[in-house]
């Protein structure tokens, strides 16, 4: 059986969906709610294509390929629909991909990762990260710097910014760690890359975060733990989405994390309700409510039915390994 995708004729197997056939033929169609070999239901609408015969926009992940189908998977119209789908998902996705402090550091220090190590008491690791940016420790560049990191710090909107420079000084002065090797260098984050933004904290959120975040550094750790394999970010970048034009007005409380088991953590404000975790656990995650207020939750009693692989199945950083 043959179909045409973007004027290219490809062979499809019986019962295959357009998405599967395209993937096999090396045509990439983005999809959030589809995961190969897993149970899934169409919903994200990022995989839409146009059936040229009927003129209908259809989700390619559930549309079975039929002999002679002509599919448009790359016209501006189709890409526009995908872009809007992503923008809509992003408008309901309260998370920072990267921490603002890290993004603005003129010396390329991964501030957030550094603070994370510091908060964990892993001073060696913190020192190694520091060494990567500042090669001539204990001399650091921060003394001359106007500290955009502290200005960008989200904690500043709650009470007072994290005293980043003081902490850097503290670690830099730890002479016992002078032998620590610099951490391997990382690809620099391009300024033109796509970043999701967490938006403004509500008063309730401010009060809660002020109360609950009291690590040594007081850092909120804005960077997303699941960002490495986040498809929402990857596709947004691919399709040239800079930021959602629809503002961020989700009701999901920001930075609220739920420990599912020893390794697994769930952060609802990053969830895009694709349902992969719901369909792929037996009496585990579930939907509650409907419409815009529909949420994914895991009842306390069901936590035992979650498993670590869900971190990979989740297309965003909503479920991740600690």
């Amino acid at each position, binding site marked *: 059986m043959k179909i045409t995708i973007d004027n290219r004729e490809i062979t499809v197997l019986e019962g295959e969906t357009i998405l599967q056939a395209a993937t096999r033929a090396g045509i990439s169609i983005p999809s959030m709610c589809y995961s190969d070999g897993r149970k899934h239901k169409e919903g994200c609408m990022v995989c839409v294509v146009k059936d040229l015969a009927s003129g209908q926009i259809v*989700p390619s992940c559930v549309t079975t390929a039929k002999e002679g189908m002509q599919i448009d998977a790359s016209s501006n119209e189709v890409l526009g629909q995908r872009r809007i789908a992503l923008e809509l998902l992003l408008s309901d996705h309260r998370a920072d991909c990267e921490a603002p402090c890290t993004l603005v550091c003129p010396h390329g220090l991964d501030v957030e990762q550094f603070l994370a190590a510091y908060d964990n008491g892993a001073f060696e690791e913190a020192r190694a990260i520091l060494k990567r940016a500042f090669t001539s420790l204990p001399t650091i560049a921060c003394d001359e710097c106007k500290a955009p990191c502290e200005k960008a710090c989200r904690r500043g909107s709650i009470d007072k910014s994290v005293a980043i420079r003081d902490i850097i000084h503290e670690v830099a002065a730890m002479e016992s760690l002078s032998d620590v090797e610099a951490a391997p260098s990382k690809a620099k984050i391009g300024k033109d890359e796509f970043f999701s933004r967490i938006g403004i904290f509500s008063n309730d959120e401010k009060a809660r975060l002020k109360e609950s975040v009291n690590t040594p550094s007081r850092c909120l750790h804005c960077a997303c733990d699941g960002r490495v394999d986040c498809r929402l970010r990857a596709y947004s970048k691919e399709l040239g989405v800079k930021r959602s034009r629809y503002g961020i007005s989700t009701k999901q409380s920001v930075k609220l994390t739920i420990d599912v088991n020893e390794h697994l953590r769930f952060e609802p404000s990053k969830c895009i309700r694709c349902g992969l975790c719901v369909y792929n656990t037996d009496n585990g995650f579930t939907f509650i409510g409907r*419409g*815009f207020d529909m949420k994914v939750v895991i009842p306390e009693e069901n936590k035992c039915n979650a498993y670590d692989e869900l971190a990979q199945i989740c297309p965003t950083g909503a479920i991740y390994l600690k």
Partner: protein
Amino acid sequence: MGCENCNSNHELDRQRLIQRVDAIIERIGSTRQMTIPLLQALQEEFSYLPSDALNRVYEKTEINRAHLLSVATFYAQFKMVPYGKHIIKVCIGTACHVKGANLVYEAFKRELQLNEDSITTPDGKYSLEKIACLGCCALAPVVQIDDKIYSYVQPGKVREVLQQHDEYIKTKPKNDEQHNARGEEYVGEVRLGMENCCQVSGNAEVYKALLKAQEELGVAIKIKPISCVGACNQIPMIDVVDKNGTITRYPNIRPKEVKEILLHHFPSASPLRRLKNAFLNQVDMFHTDETWDNILWKPEKERTGEINNFLNIQKRISTEGYGIISPLDIDEYRANGGFEALKKALHDGNRDAIIESILQSGLRGKGGGGFLTGRKWRMVADAESEEKYIICNGDEGDPGAFMDRILLESYPLRVIEGMLIAAYTVGASKGIFYIRAEYPQAVIRVTKALDMCRRQGLLGDNILQSGFSFDIEIFKGAGAFVCGEETALIASIEGRRGFPSRRPPYPAERGLFGKPTLINNVETLSQITYIVNYGAEQYTEVGTPNSRGTKVFALAGKVRHGGLIEVPMGTTIRQIVEDIGGGIEGGEKLKAVQIGGPSGGCIPAELCDAEIDFDALTRLGAIMGSGGMVVLSESDCMVDVARYFLRFTSEESCGKCTFCRVGIRRMLDILDKLCTGRGTMEDIDRLEELAHTVRSSALCGLGRTAPNPVLATLRYFREEYEEHVRGICRTGTCKDMVKYVVTDKCIGCTKCSKVCPVEAIDYKPYEQHHIDIEKCTMCGLCIDECEFDAIKKISLKSE
């Protein structure tokens, strides 16, 4: 420290609860498929879903926690917390919305002193909630308390309604069945509508007055409750049929007029009684002047002129026998040709011929889609399967529509017959009536009608000795608009969340439990018997080439005579508004007619000469929809109307696909911005782009049609959107853009000051009053109260 006694009591309570839960599980079943009926039964038993009861369900059934939570929180019917003793449901359907339902809701909230988040009063007496539509649109605004409906509830009448309800509870009649205890022969008949809405409008009182008068006069009259007449605005109304069969109609009567009317038509049998009555009547006449202005003495034309206009251009197919037949009198139905069509179909045994004739009749699905019914039947008939299902879709969720409710309550037998013919034709062995739980009366009527049919051998094994076996059961919808969509409806019968799924496969190929399933709307099925009885040709004589037959509409809004109407396709919208509806109430001008509810659009007054026709309406940006028709006047804000529908769809969206779940919400955000005067011109463009995207790409029909109210109002009333950007709402509907002021018409009577719930009007007798806009909540009570029309809403900004 725990008290042992209490603990053991608590344990005892828990044991009892578990026994009750176990009995329910025993009765309903323990499979996943039974999730919704099980939850409904639990809620009926406990009035909410107690967590101990749910825990027992996890233990005893194959329904697990994840599944149960996802289903119980999807449907609006289920409550996880106990409610107050009396539940006040404020209808916010379209018709009620344009008549100020939100102000009514706010007024209840104030009266019951509920704060922002609470819905139940501290003493647990009342709970307050909004409900999508009670289906009494012609009586808007309506409020339901427990099982009783109150009509025309204005914000100022809230306290009165609560008092009335207290009275009602005390005097609630135990049994209002009528008896002809003396066993005498009837001298005549009095017919009156006893549907829920008729009772609300005063027929209940008239009914009581009839019983009393009959007793006093000593005559045996058959008092016959009949199906809906549709003329909701003319109720209370009775038809008197005398010995000779002459019918005299009395619309808008008062209970106290009843006796006089009966006396006029039915003289007492015994001469002594007659003398006594005549004497008493004379006394009455001298003592009161009631007898003089009795409706009885008004000339025929004055009495019934308006109602005749209302009924004249209508055509009865779905509502055949209206005003004559009793909904549940099966013998009468049969005497009037009922079940003849079924007999004919079974006798001829030619299934193809029936499908052919349905195809030829051009009958199209009346539930909204307008798909050719015959083609659907053919698909199911051709599908190869041992088992096939037929579902009658009565999940009428449109706010502003009540056609299906009336058809099910008033003509259940006709719908059942249509369903039987359909089942026989396509080879279905099992039928399901899917009826909204918000329509308890319809559920009761259909249940009774099905029992009667079973008793008469019209349902069950070997129907009418034809060898055809078929039975029907009822499934109560649990409150989700999206379940009107075929695939979502199937999901809910299967005990799942009402998530639609992509078609194809169509339910006709793979539907309920994977079997071929025919799903037809109530109204569609109610037209089948006509076609079978009279033939496709006669049916095609009614209507337009693309849209044959008739369409039932629920006419409501700013029209003088609302009600349930059935008109031939091809009638113009203006004819409906002007001739049937009697024009716009209060002397205002027609602005637009909203057709098709949340999936439809507004047709502006200048285009109202358009004919009712599936394709014509679609061209105009509306849809036929299920048949809600809400008339809007110059005082209705079109941006607010669009916002109203989007709020509805965003609440009713199932949440499965991004375009509907987030897209509609974002459109609503933009409309909220516009209606509070914070919008920009770019917002209008973004709104339009998003509307087009959702329309082309959402997963199901609900999502794809949800932007229609926005697109249609943008198309015809764009200038109003632009005005809102400039901060002006010309109708004064959008609260954030207007203020209330007292004009110099004020004579200083202080009435407004007394009625104001927030003391925003100073109390200075004989001086022009002044409204403190800081305090004013714009509840509208002062406007209603002022007899001098001295309080106006004006825009904060001016052009």
